[in-house]
């Protein structure tokens, strides 16, 4: 609630993340697909953006591009600026410095993202020592502070626990602690609660909301879950087939969705109080990225399509910060 009220101030603040016309193509001997196409957005300090989309929409690739975590077959175009720094021009040494220090990421599955043969404390200490150049003892002290920051009960004991000794919720907290270890200004999260149970999911979301408020980071969360987005996001961006089809403030997007895809997504999400009634799903399935339709990528599934939709790609329109890519505007 507090976050929503802050909307006006955060919009005028300095955008910590500026992405313009980002494109990612995966090219190899027998493959050439464009996965992300002309994506632009900005996130200011203290603001949270949620990128929503189904599998294959390019949302995770967009997020990884911000940290240059893509494989060498990926060709990244456009411009990514984090705190004014042009990420796409950085060399390996500079990249290593900003990863963790300026920008860090929380992954979906903490069990595969944490190293199973080192204790949680060792892993956090290691990154603090490497980045801040402090002594091992100081690094461990900082690790303890971090575990307390993410509200892990009996944190001192948990420092010496291996990842497999922690429950799913505690593991995700430990991963958040590690992501925060070098005080990043930009925090990226890829489906941070998808692997968690409902009662634990809400605990982690509330923790993230609290940390965002207290630490004033710019946060970008990728999710397929509208409920998660509603809990944490100030602004939302909806992706479909590698393109941003709609973005705007959370309230605006949830209450006045303008793109037929966003509306379809809202309609087909099952929520309480609709027992037994047939759902109203979007027909068909997402298109093959290697073989996109010539016009609007959503046209074959769109209930509101017109003849001109298949002819050319729809232009993007911006109405007071509510951006829509649909011919009907």
């Amino acid at each position, binding site marked *: *609630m507090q976050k929503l009220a802050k909307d006006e101030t955060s919009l005028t603040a300095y955008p910590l993340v500026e992405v313009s016309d980002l494109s990612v193509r995966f090219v190899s001997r027998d493959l050439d697909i464009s996965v992300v196409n002309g994506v632009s957005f900005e996130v200011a300090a203290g603001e949270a953006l949620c990128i929503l989309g189904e599998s294959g929409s390019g949302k995770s690739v967009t997020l990884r591009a911000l940290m240059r975590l893509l494989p060498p077959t990926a060709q990244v175009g456009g411009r990514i600026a984090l705190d004014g720094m042009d990420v796409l021009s950085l060399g390996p040494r500079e990249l290593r410095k900003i990863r963790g220090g300026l920008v860090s990421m929380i992954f979906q599955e903490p069990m595969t993202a944490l190293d199973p043969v080192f204790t949680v404390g060792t892993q956090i200490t290691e990154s603090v020592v490497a980045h801040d150049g402090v002594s091992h003892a100081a690094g461990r002290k900082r690790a303890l502070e971090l575990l307390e920051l993410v509200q892990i009960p009996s944190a001192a004991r948990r420092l010496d626990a291996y990842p497999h000794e922690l*429950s799913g919720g505690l593991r995700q907290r430990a991963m958040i602690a590690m992501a925060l270890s070098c005080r990043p200004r930009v925090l990226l999260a890829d489906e941070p609660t998808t692997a968690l149970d*409902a009662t634990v999911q*809400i605990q982690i979301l509330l923790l993230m909301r609290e940390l965002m408020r207290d630490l004033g980071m710019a946060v970008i969360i990728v999710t397929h879950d509208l409920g998660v987005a*509603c809990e944490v996001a100030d602004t939302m961006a909806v992706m479909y087939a590698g393109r941003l089809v709609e973005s705007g403030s959370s309230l605006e997007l949830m209450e006045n969705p303008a793109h037929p895809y966003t509306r379809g997504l809202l309609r087909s999400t099952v929520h309480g109080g609709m027992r037994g009634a047939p759902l109203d*799903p979007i027909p068909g399935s997402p298109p093959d990225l290697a073989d996109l339709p010539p016009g609007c990528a959503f046209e074959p599934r769109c209930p509101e399509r017109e003849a001109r939709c298949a002819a050319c790609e729809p232009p993007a329109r911006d109405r007071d910060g509510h951006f829509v890519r649909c011919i009907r505007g």
Partner: protein
Amino acid sequence: MRQTLASARSPASETIGPLDRGGPAQPLLLVNGLRKYFPIKSGGLGGSATYVKAVDDVSFDVKKGETLGVVGESGCGKSTTARLLIRLIEPDSGTIVLDGDPVGGPRGLSLREMRRQVQMVFQDSYASLNPRLTIRDTIAFGLKANGIDRATAGKRAGTVLDLVGLNPSMFEQRYPHELSGGQRQRVNIARALALEPRLVMLDEAVSALDKSVEAQVLNLLQELKSRLSLTYIFISHDLNVVQHVSDRVLVMYLGKVIELGPVDALYRNPLHPYTEGLLSSRLSMSPRKRIEKPPLSGDPPNPVNPPSGCRFRTRCHLAEDVCSKLEPKLGAPAGGPHIVACHARTPGSGHSLAGKAGPATTPSS
């Protein structure tokens, strides 16, 4: 269609409702005292054996034509229960009665016959299909294993593909990797339906699908259910989806059934504090209605050494002394079909909120 298979398989005398033996009032499935402990450390050489009590004394019934939703967090035993029912895992104890016939044992239903009537759809649509079989062969496999000749089985595969909305001429000869996730899950449903089962167990069958595809598959399941008069056990962690499809809902926690009731009563007035917490953990679809305080703290405890007495007491805001000493039994505090295992709701249990023994008191809501 039901006739064609029945006549292919059995004498003509059985063709008229051959399988409905007990009549409409007989529950399709009766489960009593189902138990499965997985050993994780053997008890040799003076060490004591340790067990994961995955399913511990679970009893419930499934009525004909209903959808029973099963909810609970990971590790609560909901998937193990499903696998025990279809005997993918052998239970340690407990009885399963399918429409009046006990499953297994010298005079009971054979496993093969039970599995013809009870089919299952799994969460991972890709892992549950053989990558080296075409869709047609995948579906025909179970039919052939049940003694149906190759040609009939192939024809039947086309019929069920049509039933789940996949054009047989387009899909029959494809391999699983050539299909999308939603299409693969339709194939899994088609395979489950090929043997004309009466009970279909859906274990997180729509959880891995995208929202727009999930809605399509849910609609398909509802349509098939009424067309083929099926009974479903619908296992999911998604409380909204369970509410949407179920007639009754069963809530599990650490291997135990803690609450079971009609969907509306249970969602409107959950009796168990865990169900209450689970339901209030659902995320709203509006940024205006954010949750400010987590309804439950902590993670579900380890099922290896569950807490004594009531297994939920370590996370429960109503816990008292009695909860650690005595295990609560399932009972109906208000009478009727809504049952709960909680001392705070059971008159005479000794819990301060429970009231005295005697006539059932209405639970506070």
